[in-house]
């Protein structure tokens, strides 16, 4: 039994496992590449000595980020995209290229690497003209001066979801043009659980009954892992009243008001801990990003906290599933999952800035272009016309958009990046049964020190 489970879960989770492995390898490569770029960057003096090194070896750089052949040159609009969307962008942009008498070259960079690489490449002077990215990078892109602000004409701005534009905005400036959004939601096995649970308590009750009957071995597949997963946990934390950053009068995130160690958050996590390892055992550290999906697809868990990236696998699996919002706690606030926006950015100092701006301002906001991207990689469009067209064709898109109604855009201030790790570790400790106040107050101090508050 034990071996079988391990083997089958391996088999089922193969695509995801490889992807995770790839991510991990990327992380490793990125780490070494960061150091490489670090060495090769700085003053051009470095380039001179590096050139001597190359003279001695008679071989070029690895061409990843350091290679001079990449990056923008006048007359060719270079776009960085993740491999999933690169072909779609290339074909869609061909029209743009022809109309404007230039060439478009879309280069593949793994999505997880784009942020780090773009900042390094910009510093080294060989960045692309345009790149695809997520709204929560904006803080880091701003402080490194990597991108140039964009002005959208009113009619273009009005065709986009207002929250999406706000999410891409920092210090009153629009940093990128959003085209799609995504958020996590609840996926349920309709054979095991026909009705969408209204509250988290109901979810646990239904799941526990199934588990007691021996139908399943888990109540809920929600990744926690050894280091916690604040991205997913945010839905439950906000339902129970916790918060990460406060908002000022304009609705901007306020790094002064850090909520990790606040009484509200401590209470919220105490509530969540009731379902942790020392409580109901619904949330456990042993469920992580590696095995969450296989638990659901193997029918071992009736509920799954999933994202749009799981829908493809769900469609090819033999599980009957449905999508609904993550339920909040009974009598408390609705669960508010993070919403992530993706869009296109123009690099500062691009040699083709006029066309790069033209591309993101007038082309990325065009519903035909968004649909082409959707066909390659289905994400909910934020442009009204495209959303309508896409929702008609795919009912899941409308459902996903619905599950994000109570969502909140992930904070895009630079300070956000510093919260993930300490908060995650604290949440994992609380799930394992540690004292919530102690864990969160420590995390609060660590974050406060890192962001200099």
């Amino acid at each position, binding site marked *: 039994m034990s071996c079988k*489970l391990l083997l089958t879960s391996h088999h089922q989770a193969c695509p995801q496992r490889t992807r995770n492995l790839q991510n991990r390898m990327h992380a*490793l490569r990125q780490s070494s590449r960061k150091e490489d770029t670090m060495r090769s960057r700085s003053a051009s003096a470095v380039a001179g000595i590096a050139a001597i090194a190359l*003279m001695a070896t008679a071989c070029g750089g690895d061409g990843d980020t350091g290679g001079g052949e990449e990056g923008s040159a006048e007359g060719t609009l270079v776009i960085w995209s993740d491999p999933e969307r690169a072909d779609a962008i290339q074909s869609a942009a061909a029209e743009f290229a022809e109309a404007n008498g230039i060439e478009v070259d879309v280069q593949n960079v793994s999505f997880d690497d784009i942020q780090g690489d773009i900042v390094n490449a910009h510093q080294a002077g060989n960045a692309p003209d345009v790149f695809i990215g997520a709204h929560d990078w904006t803080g880091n892109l701003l402080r490194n001066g990597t991108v140039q602000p964009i002005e959208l004409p009113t009619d273009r701005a009005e065709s986009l979801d207002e929250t999406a534009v706000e999410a891409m905005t920092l210090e009153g400036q629009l940093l990128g043009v959003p085209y799609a959004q995504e958020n996590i939601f609840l996926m349920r096995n309709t054979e095991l659980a026909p009705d969408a649970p209204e509250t988290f308590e109901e979810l646990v009750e239904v799941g526990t009954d199934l588990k007691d009957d021996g139908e399943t071995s888990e109540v809920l597949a929600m990744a926690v892992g050894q280091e916690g997963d604040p991205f997913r946990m945010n839905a439950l934390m906000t339902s129970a009243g916790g918060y990460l950053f406060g908002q000022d009068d304009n609705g901007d995130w306020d790094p002064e008001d850090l909520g990790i160690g606040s009484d509200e958050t401590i209470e919220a996590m105490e509530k969540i801990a009731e379902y942790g390892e020392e409580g109901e055992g619904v949330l*456990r550290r042993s469920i*992580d990003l590696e*095995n969450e999906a296989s638990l659901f697809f193997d029918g071992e868990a009736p509920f799954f906290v999933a994202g749009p990236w799981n829908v493809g696998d769900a469609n090819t699996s033999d599980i009957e599933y449905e999508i609904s919002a993550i339920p909040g706690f009974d009598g408390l606030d609705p669960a508010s999952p993070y919403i992530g926006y993706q869009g296109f950015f123009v690099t500062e100092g691009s040699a083709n800035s006029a066309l790069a701006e033209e591309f993101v301002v007038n082309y990325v906001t065009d519903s035909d272009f968004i649909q082409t991207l959707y066909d390659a990689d289905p994400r909910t469009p934020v442009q009204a016309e495209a959303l309508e067209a896409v929702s008609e064709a795919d009912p899941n898109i409308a459902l996903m958009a619905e599950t994000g109604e109570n969502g909140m855009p992930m904070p895009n201030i630079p300070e956000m990046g510093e919260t993930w790790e300490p908060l995650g570790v604290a949440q994992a400790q609380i799930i394992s049964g540690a004292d919530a106040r102690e864990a969160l107050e420590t995390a609060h101090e660590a974050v406060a020190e890192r962001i200099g508050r």
Partner: protein
Amino acid sequence: MAADRSGTAGASSKGAPAGRKSPGGPQAGGSLGGQITKILLLGLFTALGVWAVLPLYLAGLWWGIGLVVAVVAFVYWVYFSKRTVPAKYLVPGVLFLMAFQIFPVLYTMSTSLTNMSDGHRGSKDQAIASIEAFSVTRDADSREFVLTVAANGDPETGELVFLLSDGEGGTYAGTEEGLTDLVGAQVDDSGKITDTIGYTVLTPAQVNSRSDELQEFAVPTDKGAGIRSSGLSSAFEGNAVRVYDESCDCIEDTETGVVYHADDERGAFYDEDGQRLPQGWQVGVGLDNFLRFLFDPTFASSFFGTLVWNIVFAVTVTFLVFVVGLAVALTLHVPKMRGKVVYRILVVLPYAMSSLAMYLLWRDMFNADFGLFNRMLGLQVDWLGDVWAARFAVILANVWLGYPYMFLVATGALQAIPRELGQAAQLDGAGPWQAFRHVTLPLLMVAMTPILISTFAFNFNNFNAVWLITRGGPFGSEGTTAGGATDLLITYTYRLAFSEATAQYGYAAALSVMIFLIVSVMSVVTLSRTKALQEVER
């Protein structure tokens, strides 16, 4: 190649400048083939030199060009002179050493003295430019136009002109002098001016080729930063809120009236309350990065705690790997053993597989609820969540992955020891253990000691082993900054330096320098001690 031909072609070659009598042996230029190879290699080297000079020339770095020329000239001298025979052999190695070892170390050291990190990457000028660019805002009553970019005369050199239409019938021509009414312009359905008298309308490609100019171009209006372009077909009136003032080296926010003063020690603009602007620049901070983890109470305690575990980890793994590897090698060295080849292949298998994938597999096997160990053995151990269990897990996985290498080396070394020595010892009345202890092991250690030292150095910095299994965890109640129970210095450095969004290169470089020093000192000490031991044994 060159050596093969030297016998036939070498004798008939006429014009070889370097005489055959040169003391450099056959490679020094006797044969035609050797000459051709030499000329080709030097030509390639020169080409690379030219290639390296081009970017330096563009950047105007004359001393860099001088350095390249000097290196090329030096190499020419070495390979054409008859008196530099040792240098002919040493130069390539030394160049490699400088380029790939010494230079990175020096560069890391110089980085460790700066505050280079996200938000502190570029120069002060870049930071100011970025702050100003990001302060141009559009308020409710600022105007918006449909834009056509034109030039006054020649499309490539003529002065840029913005042909603007406000969508309500008004058409204007905007130059660097200001905005004037435009009469007689043809406007299409979208409101875009398609033609007008006196100006040349530019094609998109022509506009694009003047992108740099366009970035700077603004039509001055009575307020703010003037009318700027956004793409090829829209323009808007903006207002620069933050302005840099050279006289006070400060940035004033004209909207709120707050003044941010440049702090050249911290590399950012700060206001009176200590609030900073996000864009900063790189400055030298002296030894601050080193002082931070040596003397800051939180960092210091975690640094030394991590250091102790790091040493324990490396020593334990090296020792266990050696013992297990040697034991297996000895077992398979017994002459009577059958099927040795099969066993040897089996033993080497873990070494042959990708360690990256193996570490991930081990991590899954350690999963408390779904992992192989707990399920098979019926245990309830929180492998990755309990301090000592996690440490045990990391060491176990590493020994498993590391012992085959030690087995290979030990097998080779054992085969080089004549069996007669062991037999002679037995004839003298020594038991198997005594024979091993006093005859085989000392001989074995001669070959194994350098391997053990390199294994130690490797494991001291074995990033993958820890990062892929535990990511340094489990973490205590102090959180991640204090370091996890299985953190090595290198994973600790990695997390502090590159965790999530903020890359702190300066601080990471300082920690790397410390690791470099620690490993160097340990290696030197161990090596000199082994030398002393060997002296004693003799």
